[in-house]
């Protein structure tokens, strides 16, 4: 399988990178993220209107660019590099994947063009419970005379406050299905959490007899699995970008900072630490690149590849954010320095949508079946 990006994909990557370097630079992260600017500074509508990026995963017929998860994962890596805080993963990643994977032409026709134009923000609720394989904790959906109603709670919902459309995974008598609920519907309560990570807007959504429409799938179970693997992949791509940027900042500092009359990057203690960070970044990048293509081509090992990529990437960002701190020394421990934002993102990623340990355990279970037959 060819894992390196083709020329169009490299162009896409360069485009997103230069755009974000200009509009969302790391140097300004501390100001922008820590609330010294208002939300209008976050580039969002321009991502949609100027670059068309919000519609990358949306088919041409619905005004999107008609690309796939490989392109999405390339964009996510770039967004992760700059710790972009806009609702891209939730809207262009998760919600679009849920809609596009369905057979619900009415829903796609209603929502996808608006998402592509940057006019509608959307998210998926219940993904954390799905990723942790706690289906019993999902809200319950029951039929009413006019459709469905949802009762229960979904935790750690990405961009819950901003989303105008929430696609909720809920259990029914026939297993998990997905439902469409517009924000403002009666019985939908959203509480934004005061989290450790200011680059992630995360909330809890409580459902009290909220009216919902089913997002129609031929086989809803497969849709949920697909959503789960795309979530793991895209979060992994985002983590890998953040890890790589963290390493770059540390390496730049090691070349700049002089102690004992020499650049500290000339000391092997620093070099080997940086080499270890690169090792984790490159290994994680390769697993993400492989997983993106496995998911795109619906390879038999796509779910395992995505879970493995997510685990590798989650470890990489955590490793880099902690190890870079040792390279920066005191300056990296200050509030003004962006390092703690990468560290905070690393903590979120470590637990949001399942842990590396749980993902690896699941992958191992299938390998044992294959190798030992039990």
């Amino acid at each position, binding site marked *: *399988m*060819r*894992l*390196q990006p083709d020329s169009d994909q490299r162009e896409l990557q360069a485009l997103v990178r230069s755009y974000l370097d200009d509009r969302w630079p790391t140097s300004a992260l501390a100001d922008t993220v820590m609330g010294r600017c208002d939300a209008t500074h976050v580039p969002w509508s321009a991502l949609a209107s100027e670059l068309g990026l919000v519609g990358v995963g949306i088919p041409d017929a619905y005004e999107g660019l008609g690309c796939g998860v490989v392109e999405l994962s390339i964009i996510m890596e770039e967004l992760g590099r700059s710790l972009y805080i806009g609702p891209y993963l939730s809207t262009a990643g998760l919600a679009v994947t849920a809609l596009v994977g369905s057979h619900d032409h009415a829903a796609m026709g209603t929502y996808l063009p608006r998402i592509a134009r940057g006019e509608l923000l959307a998210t998926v609720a219940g993904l954390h419970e799905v990723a942790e394989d706690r289906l019993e904790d999902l809200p319950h959906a029951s039929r009413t005379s006019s459709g469905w109603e949802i009762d229960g709670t979904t935790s750690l919902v990405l961009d819950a406050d901003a989303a105008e459309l929430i696609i909720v995974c809920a259990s029914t008598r026939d297993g998990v299905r997905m439902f469409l609920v517009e924000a403002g519907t009666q019985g939908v309560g959203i509480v934004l959490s005061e989290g450790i990570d200011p680059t992630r807007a995360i909330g809890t959504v409580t459902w009290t007899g909220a009216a919902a429409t089913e997002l129609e799938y031929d086989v809803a179970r497969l849709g949920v699995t697909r959503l789960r693997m795309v979530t793991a992949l895209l979060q992994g791509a985002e983590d890998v970008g953040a890890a790589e940027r963290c390493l770059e900042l540390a*390496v730049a500092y*090691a*070349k700049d900072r002089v102690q004992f009359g*020499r*650049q500290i*990057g*000339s*000391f*092997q203690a*620093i*070099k*080997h630490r*940086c*080499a*270890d960070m*690169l*090792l984790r970044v*490159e*290994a*994680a990048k*390769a*697993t993400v*690149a*492989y997983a993106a293509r496995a998911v795109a081509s619906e390879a038999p090992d796509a779910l395992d*590849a995505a879970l*493995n990529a997510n*685990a*590798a990437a989650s470890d990489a960002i955590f490793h880099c954010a902690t190890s870079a701190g040792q390279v920066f020394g005191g300056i990296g421990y200050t509030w003004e320095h962006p390092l703690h934002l990468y560290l905070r993102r690393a903590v979120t990623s470590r637990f949001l949508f399942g842990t590396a*340990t749980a993902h*690896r*355990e699941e*992958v*191992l279970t299938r*390998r*044992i079946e294959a*190798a*030992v037959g*039990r």
Partner: protein
Amino acid sequence: VNVIEESALIPSAAHIDTVQDAPGSKGEREFREKVRAVLADPLPADWLGVGRLPAEAQGPFRERWRSHLHAHGLLAVQWPVAYGGAGMSPLEQVIVAEECVTLGVPQGGLNDNFGIQMLGSTLLKYGTTAQKETLLPAILSGEHKWCQGFSEPDAGSDLANVRTSASVDGDEWLINGQKIWTSYAHLATHIFVLCRTSKAAERKQQGLSILLVEIDQPGIEIRPLKTMTGEAEFNEVFLTDARCPVDAVLGEVGQGWTAAMTLLGFERGEAAATLPIRFRSDFDRLLQLANERGRLEDGAYRTRLAASYSRVEEMRCLGELALSRWLDGEDIGAESSLHKLLWSEWVQEATELALDILGAEAITPVGEGLQGVSFPASEAGSMNTSGAWLDYFMRARAATIYAGSNEIQRNIVAERILELPRDRR
């Protein structure tokens, strides 16, 4: 005993046709099937891999297997046809390597890594016409078996510190010094010797040359060097007024450092594809061991097994990425250091895990050690016994030292990829 029959090794008249199409194409699949058929032809139906052959059958099998590969043009697949190669593309080389690994057969004899991969590739680039015409066919036929005379007692990681020296004496070089860690010197007929041919050098990388030396002469003594595993694949080589013709130089006199770096730098693109296959089969054997010892239900072991498998997958993905770049003609370069760090540390962790799975059984291992080469992964078909795992554990201790210690690899990664400043060394 699984030893192939002599009669099965009659050379075929025609070599396999080459692939002209893109990867994944029909042409590639057909080529792969032909290679597989040629490789499988002399093997018995119950063949499990060279690792299953008993110790005494290893040598004879390898000799005959090498002849089989040679007879079908599969020994130096990328060499030009004029020098006895098959003139194949990198992709075809990868396919041959993958099929060998999948079937559990070697890709050549024990000395071929030095003769074909290192010296042969460098000769094709820098050798004189006379050298190419005489040396290359002799390497392929097996008449010349080469070993590598680089490391010395005072020149390990600091290779440029070699002290072995040579001076011209009439129409010959006269060589004096000592080499160490010389793999398979006891099986070799020739040695390429990195030595100092000029003392008037500003830097120690200058004034070095690589001389091509016959081993069967009074000035060369080879002593086996027994390692902690009890095996003796390494040797010490003593050169006392050893001689070689004055034109037996690889590249130019005084340019030995460049030649040495070229020789060590020949990228084995196919290794990126084959190593992960071998590690995955190691891992599956580890799972079977854990299953037999009732450890698969134990969370502590599962977590370590899961982490170990995750690394195997990382190596596979990194290997696929490197391979696709290599096939596109890109330089893998310093990134191969990242691969080396990953696999060498994986093999140590995996064998330590095997030890813990065995528990107290590790104190009194049963069964023979690993058969075959097992650098760095064990051979296909290896026995899943405590004896084999203990041997693997011991052998794995060398993985972070040979082929450039992991400390040196981390320096390379930091300086060449991350471009951190060089330290005084």
